[in-house]
């Protein structure tokens, strides 16, 4: 009967025993010892499984170096793409409505400043509303915003610190506009690049609108 237990376990190492074999095991100390020892071995194996083992950190570096030397690793798309393109991967929202808002804000803020500037903004508003294939439309819009910005230089500011922050923020936005314009020039068919450029104009328009509001308050 001990052989039967062995033969059964060879086919089914785990799990319950058939009734006949179980009855034998209940009456046989050798077979009981065998089953008990198997349970002990299983428990110690589970204990081993819980042990945290991990290869050293440098192992990945070695593997990567070897793969690079074999030419199996290519740099990621993000690493190859120009820095400006990385901006586009972060944002996924259209900016056409924002561009319209930007025009509206700038136009509203410039009514009391200069009729010349307003005219130029108004002329270019329709260009911004449609996706212009060439950079020239954006350049005209930029020119209009620049005119607005120039008019701010003469705005009285009761708080010099706010003025400094405003100029700093405008500098940041201008840099962003420059990056986006460069991308649009390099890839004129890239709609995403064009959207980010409009978005940049929007941000500048909003800043200018804030400045106009302060001027209006300060002018009282």
């Amino acid at each position, binding site marked *: 009967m001990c052989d039967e237990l062995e033969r059964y376990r060879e086919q089914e190492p785990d799990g319950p025993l058939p009734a006949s074999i179980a009855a034998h095991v209940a009456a046989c*100390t050798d077979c009981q010892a065998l089953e*008990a020892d198997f349970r002990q071995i299983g428990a110690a194996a589970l204990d*081993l*499984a819980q042990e945290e083992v991990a290869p050293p950190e440098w192992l990945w570096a070695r593997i990567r170096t070897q*793969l690079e030397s074999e030419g199996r690793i290519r740099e990621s798309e993000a690493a190859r793409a120009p820095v400006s393109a990385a901006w586009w991967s972060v944002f996924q929202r259209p900016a056409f409505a924002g561009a319209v808002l930007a025009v509206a804000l700038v136009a509203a803020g410039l009514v009391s400043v200069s009729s010349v500037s307003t005219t130029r903004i108004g002329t270019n508003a329709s260009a911004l509303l449609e996706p212009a294939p060439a950079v020239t439309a954006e350049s005209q819009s930029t020119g209009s915003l620049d005119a607005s910005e120039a008019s701010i230089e003469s705005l009285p500011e009761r708080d010099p610190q706010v003025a400094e922050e405003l100029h700093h923020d405008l500098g940041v936005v201008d840099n962003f506009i420059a990056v986006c314009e460069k991308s649009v020039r390099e890839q004129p068919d890239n709609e995403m690049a064009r959207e980010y450029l409009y978005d940049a104009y929007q941000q500048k328009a909003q800043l200018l609108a804030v400045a106009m509001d302060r001027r209006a308050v300060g002018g009282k």
Partner: protein
Amino acid sequence: MSEADAIRLAQRGNAEAFERIYRLHNRRVYALCLRMVGNTAEAEDLTQEAFLQLFRKIATFRGESAFTTWLHRLSVNVVLMRLRRKTLAETSLEEETEPDEETGGPRKDIGAPDLLLTGSVDRVHLERAITQLPPGYKSVFVLHDIQGFEHNEIAQIMNCSIGNSKSQLHKARMRLRELLQETLRQQAREKRQAARGGLATSD
């Protein structure tokens, strides 16, 4: 990045994808190698080799089997190849204890019944005993009892039948039992000798 995306990107040579796959599986592969060879330096070497082979062949992975199964098959093969190239000592042990993996019948001398293991088996003893198992038994025992693979998965990894996987597991456990009983006998001998030595000095 999901594993499926990482595999797809790694097939195109994407660096981040390679690393993602490595981070997902390195511990399990390393644990398998370590249990099989018993020392960290060799386990690191084998882990590196397993992943290099994986990344060299990843373009051929078509998804017919689970990626984990495929990776572990590769890892086990890397380990077995290394073990087969090892020296005489291990080869002799294999021949001695595994006369015929396919048709060898159950051993009759299954160890002294009066040396119950109950309470005596800890993971240190077991780890040492595992290193003395023949490679085939070792693979199945490590994959099933330690790493938790089912017999159908082991059959795919080891390229054998489910029945063979079960049979090998039983034989592995029987052999481990013998090895652990031998360890107990050795410890009992040493205790007796120590006790005799103590008596001699006190006389």
